[in-house]
């Protein structure tokens, strides 16, 4: 039982001891351990989609009132083998590159996409002391990696040399950039309250408050709304809008498995990020006694919960147009996130430094409710005014356009 308590750390120490016993110099022990650790960590996001795709397909089936994957000749019992089957099909498909495509850019785009999705996992704490690298810039590292996925989308869209891919990539990048601002601002609110970029610090700080989901619900909502477009989830899904632009920026790819995988890994990473920032990460009852519970039980449950919420949104909401997404992110989420930071800063400053977790949480909650009562009516009024103005412009433009004909 003692060994099981800190299972992952113990395995790591056992591995280091094994290498040292084999008589390797210290530097090689370090390099090999880091390499194996990084490889194992990278396998997690690459392997888990096999289970999670099955889960998602069951969820969408229930939402659509179907049975979903089930016993079949190839699917195996409960459809368990369906995802491996699909993966084999994906890998054995003919790999065709369009004749006019830019070969290098076309072929490296999926690699960049998956690399970025894997790199995120380096700073996510999976349990007490179990983290790829506790960077001092933790969450900021993840935010700056978002730049890589924007470049990957542009590379795929432009490299395909095809109008539909390019148009979809431009729409997708427009949404990705517009959601980046509320995303950064909501993360900034968390960082401001915690006083550190480091992911373990953010988890630890949630002991002084309730979970941040309850202490600052608006921040959590803005964050949730901004992470939806990265893995292409409705209502903010224009990166890959099957029904409008075929398959978005990767229309021309015969083997789109890599993009599919990257999308799924992103969804998983964003869910785990939400669980870490707003639901206390791996923390939960009994973790002090048995640390491994934090990884395999609490973090898994929280991540699965967030992912289910994202899937529920995806499969029950209609898709917004690109201009509507831009309007929501620029005219609603961004001002809200800015006000949110000011309000939380004020609330945090007025609190006495020795306030208990309950006082802090209630103060932040009150600040959030006050913000809702003041800001939402203002934004709604401005939106109504803008719509009225547009209506007038449209009416004024109509007769003249008839004259032209």
């Amino acid at each position, binding site marked *: 039982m003692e060994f099981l308590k800190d299972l992952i750390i113990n395995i790591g120490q056992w591995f280091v001891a094994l290498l040292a016993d084999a008589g390797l110099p210290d*530097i090689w022990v370090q*390099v090999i351990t880091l390499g194996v650790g990084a490889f194992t960590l990278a396998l997690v996001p690459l392997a888990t989609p096999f289970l999670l795709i099955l889960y998602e397909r069951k969820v969408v089936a229930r939402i659509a009132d179907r049975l979903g994957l089930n016993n079949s000749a190839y699917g195996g019992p409960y459809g368990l083998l369906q995802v491996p089957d699909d993966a084999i099909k994906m890998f054995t498909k003919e790999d065709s590159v369009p004749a006019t495509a*830019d070969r*290098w*850019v076309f072929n490296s785009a999926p690699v960049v996409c998956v690399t970025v999705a894997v790199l995120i996992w380096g700073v996510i704490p999976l349990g007490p002391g179990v983290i790829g690298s506790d*960077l*001092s*810039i933790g969450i*900021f*590292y993840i*935010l*700056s*990696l*978002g*730049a*890589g996925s*924007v*470049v990957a989308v*542009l*590379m795929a*869209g*432009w490299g395909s040399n095809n109008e539909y891919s*390019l148009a979809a990539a*431009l729409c997708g*990048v427009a949404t990705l*950039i517009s959601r*980046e601002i509320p995303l950064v601002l909501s993360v900034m609110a968390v960082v401001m309250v915690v*006083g*550190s*970029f480091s992911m373990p610090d953010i988890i630890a700080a949630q002991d002084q408050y309730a979970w941040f989901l309850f202490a600052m619900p608006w921040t959590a909502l803005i964050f949730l709304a901004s992470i939806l477009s990265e893995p292409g989830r409705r209502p903010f899904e224009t990166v890959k809008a099957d029904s409008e632009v075929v398959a978005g920026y990767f229309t021309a790819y015969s083997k789109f498995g890599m993009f599919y995988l990257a999308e799924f890994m992103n969804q998983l990473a964003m869910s785990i990020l939400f669980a870490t920032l707003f639901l206390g990460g791996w923390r939960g009852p009994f973790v002090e006694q048995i640390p491994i519970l934090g990884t395999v039980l609490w973090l898994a449950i929280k991540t699965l919960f967030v992912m289910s919420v994202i899937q529920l949104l995806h499969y029950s909401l209609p898709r917004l147009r690109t201009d509507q997404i831009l309007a929501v992110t620029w005219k609603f989420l961004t001002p809200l996130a800015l006000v949110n930071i000011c309000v939380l800063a004020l609330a945090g400053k007025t609190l006495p430094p020795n306030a208990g977790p309950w006082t802090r949480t209630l103060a932040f909650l009150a600040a959030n409710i006050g913000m809702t009562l003041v800001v939402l009516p203002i934004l709604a009024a401005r939106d109504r005014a803008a719509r009225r*103005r*547009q209506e007038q*412009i449209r009416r004024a433009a109509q007769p003249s356009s008839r004259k032209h004909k």
Partner: protein
Amino acid sequence: MTLQQILFLIFSAITLIAALMVVTRRNLCHAALFMVLSFFGVAGLYVLLEAPFLAGVQVFIYVGGISTLIIFAIVLTRDVVDPTLPPHNRQWIAGALVMALLCSVLIWTVLGYQWTTTTPGQVPADSIARLGTILVDPEGFLLPFEVTSVLLFAVLIGAITIARER
């Protein structure tokens, strides 16, 4: 050779080769993508210098902001990938002059600088917090910080004024 030196060589090679490709590629889109790679190489050098925040900012601003903007402009422009177009325009003499001037200033600075060869001290664990404090400290960089903010704010207002519906 230590691990750090090997990594330094790798990152420098990535930065320099990618930078060379940026100016030699005839295809502007390729040039822009190599520029992204070059920025990543510089970010790697910052990490080696134990300045992770600077590395993050480098990727966040140069790759996420500037490169994306440049690629956006390039993919929306016609004929940028046509290899028969001349690689330079009439401003090449002025460009070469400015480049030669900048290059000589850089060489002069590099040759004249007293490079320290001692091992630097440990980077403090709260370096990011210190950076934040010194930016808003009147004794530190408050004035440049505020001037930059005002400049960016003016740019923001200018952009909105140009783009707003009339």
